[in-house]
């Protein structure tokens, strides 16, 4: 619980930036940047999420212990994901569905053909 009260203006500003981020991420998604597409999309998502956490969830004015819990949970989530990525990168091609070629896991092939 925070005792300090943020001015309303802060919320509107953050909302504006979040909208801008949404617009940008949609526009960029239609350009072919190769592998960078994923990186850019997730970077924007991380920035948006950080803004929500810091301002909408008031972490920017929280006490030290709250901040510590937040950061540590993110680190542990990353540790869990490391296991998944390690598995993905070292996987035997034969264990993929229908024995598909290991490197034909481009995102396009997962997408529906329409719009």
């Amino acid at each position, binding site marked *: 619980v925070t005792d300090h009260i943020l001015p309303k203006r802060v919320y509107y500003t953050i909302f504006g930036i979040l*909208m801008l981020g949404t617009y940008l991420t949609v526009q960029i998604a239609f350009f072919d940047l190769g592998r960078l*597409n994923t990186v850019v999309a997730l970077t924007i998502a991380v920035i948006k999420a950080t803004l929500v956490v810091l301002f909408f969830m008031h972490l920017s004015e929280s006490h030290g212990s709250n901040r510590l819990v937040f950061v540590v949970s993110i680190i542990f989530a990353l540790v869990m994901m490391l296991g998944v990525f390690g598995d993905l990168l070292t996987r035997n091609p034969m264990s993929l569905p229908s024995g598909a070629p290991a490197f034909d896991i*481009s995102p396009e092939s997962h997408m*529906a053909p329409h719009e």
Partner: protein
Amino acid sequence: LDVTLGTINTVVLITSSLTMALAVHAAQLGQRKLVLWFLVATMVLGVAFLGIKSVEYYHKFEEHHVPGPGFQFEREYFRHAQLFFSLYFIMTGLHALHMIIGIGIMLVMFRWTWRGIITEDYYSPVEISGLYWHFVDIVWIFLFPLLYLIGRHGP
């Protein structure tokens, strides 16, 4: 997946996060009426999100893109697509479930504010409900690019 509907839903959900933040703000200042209005706005936007989501689900059912015996897709990508749509339905379904729970929490908060339990000295329930709502929003902030946008470029 339909990028337009996905984008609209992203805007709807971020806006609901704004109204939620403003509800907490009003609660901190003890502006009871404003809290009620912002809670209603949050719930309406939440329901709108679920409505658009169900339209999308309906399209997927019509196109036989729901994994299972009736699944249909180009032969070349059949298994890939089935895997993708399994993940799609599990992730968005779980997210939608959290939204429904969130709307339930908002109803309770509305009732508590209505009955005068929530005051400027005791607004923690609204603030904590807000944390939950923002968390669900953050999940969508990641799901949207992962499911709708990545792999969108090209012909």
